[in-house]
Structures are given as C-alpha cells and as structure tokens.
C-alpha cells in the first residue's frame, strides 16, 4: 500500500541490531553502574572490613579479656564472630539508598527509564545487584571469621563447639540478613527519593524508632523485637535469644523488606520520573 508512496524518504538503515530490553540486560547494566562509582566500592569495602575485623577482634578480645571481671566469666561462643553484623548492615542499607536516590539527584533516572521503560525491572535489577553484593560480603566476611576464630582462640587455650548446620546458618545467614536489609534500603530510597531525607529516614527507622517503645513502657521491648534489625539479626544470634527463633526472626525482616518493596514499586510506577 504505502510502500511506493514514501519514495521521497530513504529507508532508515540500521547497522547495529540492538537486542530487546530484558531483565538480564538490565541487571548487567545496573552492575556496570554499580562498579562505575568509586563511592560504592568504598562503602561496600568499609562494610566488609568492619565485619571481617569483628570476626577477628572478638576471639582476640576473648583471649586477652580481663578474667578477673565477673562480666568476662563466660565461655567462648561462635555467634560472637557475627554479633555486629546486625548494625553494620546499616552501612549496606545506606549504600542501597544511595544507589536509587543518587539517580534522582543527578537526573540519571531519566536515562535509566528511557532504556528500560518497564520500571519494575529497574527496581528488581537494582535490588538484585545490591542483594548479591551484600550476600557475598556477609558470607565471605563471616567465613573468614569462622576460619580464623578457632585458631585465635586455640592460641589462648580456648575453643567453641560449632556443628556444621549451625556454621551454615551463621555464614549463609550473614549473607541473607545483609541482602534483605539492603533491599529494604532500595525500597526506602525509592519511596523517599531525596538523598539526605532517605538516608536519615533509613537510620531513624533502623536505629531510633525501635528503641522508642522502650522509653515509655517496660513492655516496649515486646514491640522492639519486631523491628528489622532486631528481628533479622536473630538469625545470627545464639538460639534461645528470643522465643521467635532465628528463622522466624528473619521472616519478620523479610516481611518488612517485601512490604516496603511493594510500596516502592507501586509509587515508582505511578510517579513521574
């Protein structure tokens, strides 16, 4: 029909057959973006160093503790290797917040959504990258700790008993905990968008809000237990720390993460970029 009528306009000759946009390509793109920013390496490296240092420092401190103090009168236990992971996770949550809010500050978000107009894919890709990075940081840093701790403790004549399933819970759990907390960061950053406001809100939600109930009532701790860090880090605590147990605690963190992510996805889809 119209094939002969448009002879005036030459056909567009495309030399580069670009593929269709896919979630896989979007994840690769987000990985390239993640690697391209020095600040991401600094924050991720900082979290890794803190976690690894704790895994070495805790058994070290146990060996050289002041045995005269009544507080020091306890046996070495494996969970001490990962007992700061709960709070160090905030570093990775903030890194996740920056991954999305920096896009709004720099107007990069427009470029991102032009390439990938299906916005949910962008969020899923970002969450995948930071969750993967956080998981690796948790697993590797805790593995280093559990490899070195027995050697350090043995130097002072100490040791702990750690069954393989427990070792697996603490090593994989470090990764799973940090992954969930960083996805929560992506969600908060997406909802709030402003860099400073989102970072502050994340810190307030994770650190300050949980302790507020305790200020008003002795039963406040019953509420505090269910906040992301408190519930989630049960996965890395000695069993029996809380009636919920490690995996139920982690499930509570996952509910926070998933609920925030759904809210984030809905707002991200509805709003102007």
């Amino acid at each position, binding site marked *: *029909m*119209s*094939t002969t009528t*448009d002879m*005036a*306009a*030459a*056909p*567009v*000759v*495309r*030399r*580069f057959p*670009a*593929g*269709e*946009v*896919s979630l896989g*390509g*979007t994840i*690769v*793109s*987000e990985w*390239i*973006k993640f*690697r*391209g*920013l*020095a*600040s991401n390496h600094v924050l991720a490296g900082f979290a890794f160093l803190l976690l690894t240092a704790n895994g070495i420092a805790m058994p070290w401190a146990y060996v050289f503790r002041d045995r005269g103090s009544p507080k020091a009168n306890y046996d070495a236990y494996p969970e001490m290797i990962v007992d700061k992971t709960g709070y160090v996770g905030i570093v990775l949550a903030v890194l996740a917040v920056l991954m999305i809010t*920096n*896009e709004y500050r*720099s*107007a*990069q978000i*427009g*470029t991102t*959504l*032009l*390439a*990938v*107009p*299906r916005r949910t894919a962008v969020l899923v890709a970002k969450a995948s990258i930071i969750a993967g990075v956080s998981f690796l940081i948790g697993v590797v840093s805790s593995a280093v700790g559990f490899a070195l701790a027995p050697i350090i403790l043995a130097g002072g004549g100490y040791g702990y008993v750690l069954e393989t399933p427990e070792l697996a819970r603490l090593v994989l759990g470090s990764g799973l905990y940090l992954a969930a907390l960083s996805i929560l960061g992506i969600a908060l950053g997406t909802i709030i968008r402003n860099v400073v406001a989102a970072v502050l809100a994340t810190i307030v939600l994770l650190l300050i809000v949980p302790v507020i109930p305790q200020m008003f009532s002795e039963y406040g701790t019953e509420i505090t237990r269910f906040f992301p860090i408190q519930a989630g880090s049960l996965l890395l605590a000695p069993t029996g720390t809380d009636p919920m147990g490690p995996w139920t605690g982690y499930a509570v963190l996952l509910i926070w993460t998933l609920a925030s992510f759904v809210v984030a996805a809905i707002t991200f889809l*509805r*709003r*102007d*970029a």
Partner: protein
Amino acid sequence: MINPWLAVADAHASVASMARGDRYEQEEDAMTIDVEGLTKTYRGTYAVRDVSFSVQSGKVTGFLGPNGAGKSTTMRSIVGLDRPTAGRARIDGSEYRAFAAPLREVGALLDARAAHRSRSALNHLTSIAATHRIPRSRVDEVLEATGLSAVARKKVGGFSLGMGQRLGIAAALLGDPGTLILDEPVNGLDPEGVTWVRELLARLAAEGRTVFLSSHLLNELALIADHVIIIGRGEIIADAPIGSLTEQGDGRVRVRTLDVPALTRRITSAGATVASSEPGVLDVEGLSAEQIARAANEAGVLITELTPLRQTLEEAYNRLTRDAQEFVSA
C-alpha cells in the same frame, strides 16, 4: 549515485516490514510522533493543555517556545517519563512503554546533566548499552561521532555543558534509533558544536528518521529545523514549515525616493498610509509595490528602492506568542 547496498537494504527493509506485520500499516507514514489531546497538570496548574500535533519523518521539526511553555513536559510525556493527566502520545503507532527495544526505536536527550557526576562517560554509555545488548563497538562509535573519545574515561561531573550535550546525544544515538527527541540539544554548544548538530540532524532526517528538537531560542532553531511547532503557555500556537512563517509579507512596502513630498501626496491621495523611518524613505501601507511604482511613474518621481517588507522570523514568533498570551488571559 547508485549504491547497490542501499538498494539491497531497501528491498530487505520492505520484506522485513511486511514480515513484521501490520503495526506500521495503520499509519499513513511509518515514522511519526503523534500527540493527541495531551494535558498535564502539576498540582492543579496546567503545564500543557490539550496539545495535539504530529511530527513527520524525513525532516527536522523544531519545538519552539519560551521557557516554561511546556516543551519539556510534552517531550517527557512522549517517552513516558511523565504520566499525562489526559491524552496520549505515540511513536510509530506505539506507546513508548510498549516497545520491546525502546532505544532502537527512539533516542532521547532530555537533560544534558542526566548522568551521575562521578561516573565516566564510557561507564555511562556502556551501562545504557547493556540494557539492549548493544555491542561495545557501537559505544566507541558514538563516542567517536560525538568527539568524546579522548575524554571517555573522564568523570561526567567535570564536563562542560557542551560536553554534557555531546554525551547526551551519544546516548541518544546508541541504539541507532528511527526517532530522535532532543530537548534543547544545542544549549551550551559552541558555534562549531551547533554546526555539527545541525549537520548531524539534517543527515539523520535525510535517512528518513524522525527528528524532533526543542529550543527556546528562535535563531538557533531557524538554522536547524525545516518545520516548526510553536508552543506558548502550554498550548500549540503554530505548526508550519519554517519558511512559511517568514514568507508572508506584512503588507508594507519600503520606498526610497528623491522627492518625498511629491510621492507622499500622490500615494496618500490613492488611499495609502505612509510612515517614514529615515529621511528619503517611506514605509507605505495600503498599496502594492506595483501600484506604488505606477503612482511614482505617473507623478514623474524617481524612486531608487522599492522593497516589500517581510516580517522576520522573530517578528512572526513574537506576534504568535503575543496572540497566544492575549488568548489565554481573555
């Protein structure tokens, strides 16, 4: 001038478009941007109000209007970054979001600063390319084409506005798209850069692509565009070939004569009104150049210049935007 490769590509394209089905066939012209009744409000204030126009392929269409007229809102709505309050925009018959490979269909530059400051230009472009599995060779090619090869590994934050524009154009060209949507692409470019953009866009349009660019500077656009759509206060006030805006005279004729009083008497008695901008020069309204020449001949007055006055593009633009403002406030 016979290029067998183009002929082969032509045949190939026809077969491909037939194989692709009827997506393009419903449109009279394959490559277009169609905006229908687009309305966008921000907190109750209209940014654009019931805007409709279409942009044809094969030529450079300018989108002209003062700052805040609604150019960026319209362009952002076309590519789905902003959600219209009402109306819709389609490119080649599809909404932007529906494209399987959006960068192959549309290249857009909406903000020359749309890259993280701490990222290198190369990182920025490879991250975009990865979404569509565009090969690295194409990234190098657009860097080369935009003159950024030497600074590819430098951080975007150190770029001048002009270099930012070049990076934005490089990103827009990555997918070798059939449609280009560029918001203020020459803003901040040096004269050499403006010439480069003009030649680039003319070449892309000659290849049959749709080229749509905005500017708030008329002179800039006059050099680049073939067709112009003028927007003022969120409404379209003109949609015409750029030449037609200046072609129409405003009815006045400039006459230079050695005997001003005699010619003035003669032509005012013929019903014309006369103004004088400088000694020896009359601006005559109400008579054509030919009627004035006859009048001068009959009166025996020598005239040394006779020029129908055309409005400049700027006068046309000012007149159109002024009318729109009166319309809005009425």
